């Protein structure tokens, strides 16, 4: 399996990564090699084997519904580049321009 430079560009765009043309070329090569290795795994016969999405057979750990310690706004905002009152202040985003 190979990946095209165009697919690398789209993937980088989705991840908000700015890649130079040289980087795109290098990523195309390197990701292609990784996908090639995956292809070998894909060749293994897994007929009748349940898909595994986690390496450890665990139940999902759960906790009781209890409110624990909170940071509070002052500590939450301590590392914010910009704040306005108790809000994080960010470059303007278009109203509602997102999915739910």
């Amino acid at each position, binding site marked *: 399996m190979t990946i095209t430079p165009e697919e690398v560009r789209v993937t980088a765009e*989705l991840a908000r990564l700015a890649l130079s043309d040289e980087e795109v070329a290098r990523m195309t090569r390197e990701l292609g090699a990784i996908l090639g290795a995956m292809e070998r795994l894909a060749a293994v016969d897994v007929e009748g084997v349940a898909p595994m999405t986690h390496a450890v057979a665990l139940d999902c750990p*759960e*906790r009781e519904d209890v409110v624990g310690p909170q940071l509070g706004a002052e500590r939450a905002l301590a590392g914010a580049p910009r704040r306005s009152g*108790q809000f*994080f*202040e*960010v470059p*303007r985003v278009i109203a*509602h321009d997102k999915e*739910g």
Partner: protein
Amino acid sequence: MSRYEPVIGLECHVQLQTRSKLFSAASASFGGEPNDHTDPYTLALPGTLPVLNRRAVEYALRMALATGCRVRRVSRFARKHYFYPDLPKGYQISQYDEPYAEGGAIGFLLDGQPRRVALTRIHLEEDAGKSTHVGGAPTSLVDLNRAGVPLIEVVSEPEIRSAKEAAEYLRALRQLVRWLDICDGNMEEGSLRCDANVSVRPVGATTLGTRTELKNMNSFRHVQQAIEYEVARQTALCERGERVVQETRLWDADRGSSHPMRSKEEAHDYRYLPEPDLPPLHIADEEVERARTSLPELPLARRARFVERLGLTDQDAALLTTERPIADYVEQVIAAGADGKRAANWVASEVLRELNRAERSIADCPIAPPALAGLCRLVDDGTISGKIAKDVFGKMWASGRGAKEIVEAEGLVQLTDEAAIEAACRAAVEANPQQVGKYRAGNDKLIGFFVGQVMKATRGKANPEMVNQMLRRLLS
């Protein structure tokens, strides 16, 4: 009649009223000062990991069972990636190809006819924070109190056929989540949110037309208006031979119209992947059984039982089952010894009217169920008349005193002594010779006048039935 029919599916986000968030222990309560309900996980600080809130799963399970869904014994969380300032992790933990619940339906009555709208699925996910955009300002403000609050998303099949039906479906859904005590259903505060997928197709067609997604509707009325507007817009496009563009549209309640949301050029690609920080969610058979046995009788079943057992009209039964605490109140009045139909009628008329007037919920009703039962019994055993009972009710409401206490203290016991009633009736007849003449000449309606005179003289205490009979005898 239009040659096109609408096809509508709803996606509803229901905020689960847990105390803490879905994956961390910060408070999940509404409001609070901005960013106070935060912890390192909510802010997506490095090294933090999600730990699932057990109660959120219990609540989600309740909804799945109440709607007859198949519950997956093993379901998975997935990451849904998108960039937005109110989503600190850069992804939302949701469920994708293996949601915890599938199938099921929501039942309701549409114009008196039973309807069921099938559900595709219900899944668990976390809410995002809230961004505020101040008009004209170059920046947006972000509050992360809501980030991580547990949600279930209830997705219907595209089988709703009108805006009105969509609104009824939503009402039934809201009633159900409130009934199950898993969400307060407050659409204005956003604890219940609804998006609609709308398309139209020629009547009789089996394939679906291009759909649009409607957002930003925060009341039943808005949902209905927005869908009506969209169906008319798409129908007009189709009739002119134009194409419907697949897009997301925002409802503008002030203008009564919708407009397309500005979208990025790239198509949305959420790059879902299995959440590596959470093992699969196992829901054991015992857990499902426990939830099933603890489910309350559901609204439609209770409504039918009220009609059947108490002899109520469907309208009254619907009124008394809008909220579980009201239905429970009725049953507590009956359990305390009141006649079923009488109890139901008192609650449907006097109690709900007074609560409305005082803007109170049934939980704050100043008349406890046994006290109302006491009043009902006084009417049933003839101690007081129905008319006096209404006055007594008002006094009970204002003072919190019992019915019997008020009746005794104020001498309101119904007059049933035949001799006393006869005396009062004779007095009324003798004092009004003119009316007697007219009555005997055939003006039957004047009986009401005489009854009124007797009631006035006895301060409303005379048994109306006995007065009626006595007067007819004296006047014949």
